[in-house]
């Protein structure tokens, strides 16, 4: 009981130490540079295949997949989402279901408007 009232400063320190331990479990300079090389390689690959003359649809889906791969590495490693609590993970990631829904209805609407003659 008394421990809760020591001082706000100590409480604060305890939190930051907790974060410190967690961060040390997954992210060190070696991992950081590894993620950097992955991101760089994916970007160079994307620019390179855009000149190969593959079919537009194939390119589109490749780009979308690779973008999500890049987003995963940035969010899960650089923003250390991977090492966060499950509750935080879900409260941030789940709302993006709505974004996926919006993508489908908006693109569908766009195509439909293009078909209207006026």
């Amino acid at each position, binding site marked *: 009981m008394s421990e809760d009232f020591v001082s706000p400063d100590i409480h*604060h320190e305890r939190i930051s130490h907790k974060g*410190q331990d967690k*961060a040390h479990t997954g992210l060190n300079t070696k991992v950081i540079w590894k993620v*950097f090389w992955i*991101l760089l390689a994916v970007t160079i690959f994307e620019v390179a295949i855009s000149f190969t003359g593959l079919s537009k649809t194939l390119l589109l889906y490749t780009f979308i997949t690779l973008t999500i791969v890049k987003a995963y590495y940035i969010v899960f490693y650089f923003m250390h989402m991977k090492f966060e609590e499950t509750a935080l993970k879900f409260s941030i990631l789940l709302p993006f279901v709505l974004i996926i829904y919006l993508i489908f209805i*908006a*693109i569908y609407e*766009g195509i439909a408007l*293009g078909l209207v003659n006026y």
Partner: protein
Amino acid sequence: MWIFLLSDAFTFSSLLIMYGALRHRWADIWPFPGEVFTHFPFIHGHVPLAYVGLMTFILIMSSVTMVLAVDAGHSFKRKKVQMWLGFTIIGGLMFVGSQAWEWYHFIKGSGEGAYYLSDGRFARTDDLEPGALLFHDGTRIEGAEAEHLKSTALKNVKGATLYENEYGPTPLFGNFFFFITGFHGFHVFSGVVINFIVFVLVSKGALDRKKDYELVEKVGLYWHFVDLVWVFVFTFFYLV
């Protein structure tokens, strides 16, 4: 910070989704980004995507230096935090500068611009192929016929404004370019300012006295988010 980033992600998502919707609405006349962003400093010729690729590299690089700053903060190495944060600020400024260069060329356009022809068609020109009219479907007209079409054209458009641009017969392409990259560039600029404030606080030893480098982690989150948004803008505005 996460909740703020979530709301900001929604803003950027709605902009990019609207871009996608209107691009599909005008699918037959929408410009090909690979034919618009072709400039590269000191190179006379077309190098599509190379410059945005370089900008992406700069931003990812500055994201890495930011993680390294956060990492150094965990072990209270003030000098290292200062160094990596400094590199991040430089990277951010380089990115904003690159974007200014990109905007300059987008607004200035080519030497001759594009023509709204009297038969209703829209034809672009290219500095590297003088005298030729280029159409969206890939066909081209040269010589006397091109000169005749130009002389009877209804309008000649050079560069880009919010009302018209030489890249296609719709202002929407320019509008989305200015709004999306502008909104993102403003985020980068704010990030540089915030990073600079944290840099000053770190240099003064304020975080050492607090025995807490969480502030670096917070601006780090914002900075990575800006990088993340650029990854999506890069794909959906420049690549596809």
